[in-house]
């Protein structure tokens, strides 16, 4: 049975879901993804354990839906070469990044890295919750965060991470 409280919680999560979807898939598809998520959430409400937090459950539904959509035939997907680097953007140091530039950079990140970065940066989810939401180990969250953040830095700055400091990052990823 659904309750008005379920609905209230679901509606309270809508702005966050929209923000995440907007950053994850871009403006054209974001609202469709949110709507599909909400519809699936209603159908699966029985599987949600009341008393648990609804937010990670909803983000996990959105994650799975998005993967389903990507697997659908007809969509040509091309995983970008991890070493591919965007041409350096023409932006003065300190100048704000335009949303289109950020969209383009995010789109060049592998999906797994993009998801982790956005859940941490926008939702400020604890790493353990990110792991549960995406159904991956915390160690994988941390390694995707490292690779994703360094790659995003390269994409936005147009230069390899660590180039000004000489040599690659000094720490090993601890899994």
């Amino acid at each position: 049975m659904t309750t008005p409280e379920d609905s209230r919680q679901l509606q309270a999560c809508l702005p966050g879901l929209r923000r995440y979807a907007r950053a994850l898939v871009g403006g054209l598809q974001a609202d469709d993804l949110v709507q599909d998520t909400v519809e699936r959430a209603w159908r699966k409400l029985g599987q949600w354990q009341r008393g648990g937090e609804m937010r990670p459950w909803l983000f996990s539904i959105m994650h799975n839906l998005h993967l389903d959509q990507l697997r659908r035939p007809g969509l040509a997907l091309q995983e970008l070469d991890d070493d591919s680097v965007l041409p350096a953007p023409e932006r003065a140091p300190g100048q704000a990044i335009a949303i289109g530039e950020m969209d383009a950079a995010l789109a060049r990140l592998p999906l797994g890295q993009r998801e982790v970065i956005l859940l941490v940066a926008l939702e400020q989810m604890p790493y353990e919750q990110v792991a549960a939401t995406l159904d991956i180990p915390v160690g994988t969250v941390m390694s995707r965060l490292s690779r994703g953040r360094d790659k995003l830095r390269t994409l936005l700055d147009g230069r390899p991470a660590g180039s000004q400091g000489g040599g690659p990052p000094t720490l090993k990823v601890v899994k």
Partner: protein
Amino acid sequence: MRTQAISEAQLHALADGVLPEGQRAAVDAHLCAHPQDAARVDAWREQNRQLRALFDPVLDEAVQPHLMQAASPPAANGAWQRPAMQAAAAIVLVIAGGMGGWLLRGDGGDTGDMRAASALARSAAIAHAVYTPEVRHPVEVGVAQEAHLVQWLSKRLGSTLRPPVLSPLGYHLIGGRLLPGDGDGPVAQFMYEDGGGKRLTLYVAKERAGRQETAFRYTQEKDLGVFYWIDGQMGYALSARLPKAELGKIADAVYTQLEAHG
């Protein structure tokens, strides 16, 4: 000298503001000794700041009515809570109550197909009562973007939809919207208007596979009449405040056009 105890995870925790206070001094010491790691942490912090600056404004955007509605249980539609809907809500309660009684009467049969058809008519009547009184936002996508409207609703229902042309009968399409269904996915509502502002709606729902087709059925609550039928995978309900004979003529035209394309 690198401090062995510092992990990359701690650097992320620092950038994200979740590093336990007790580890702060050791991490700071590491960063003093390793400027390239300090630069990374700064860059990550800056990324967080930029991402929030760019995407946080989405939080302040008004959530579209269809999303709010999708987030409401199908039985207790969130549209009721919107001020613009409250006048309509009173009418709807009367209709829902009346049709509920009508549903209980069973309409002479008790098969699942008939129940599905009855539920269709009831949902269509409620949607009609809610949206047709709207002055500024009767439809979500207007007829000016008809191609987009049809494409969007077709995509959402998973079937190619073709809103019938009713202009020979004096009604022109003004647009449509997506609504939550009764459990079998979303439904579409197309709205038409005549020269005098009288509105009729065509409610289109995708039915579960395997439903039998039904003949035309008719139900009426006060002055709102609904002709409804199930044809293959699709359920249709045509609602308007019109005499039965007049609405029946339009329903015939709708059925004929849908058949021609089917």
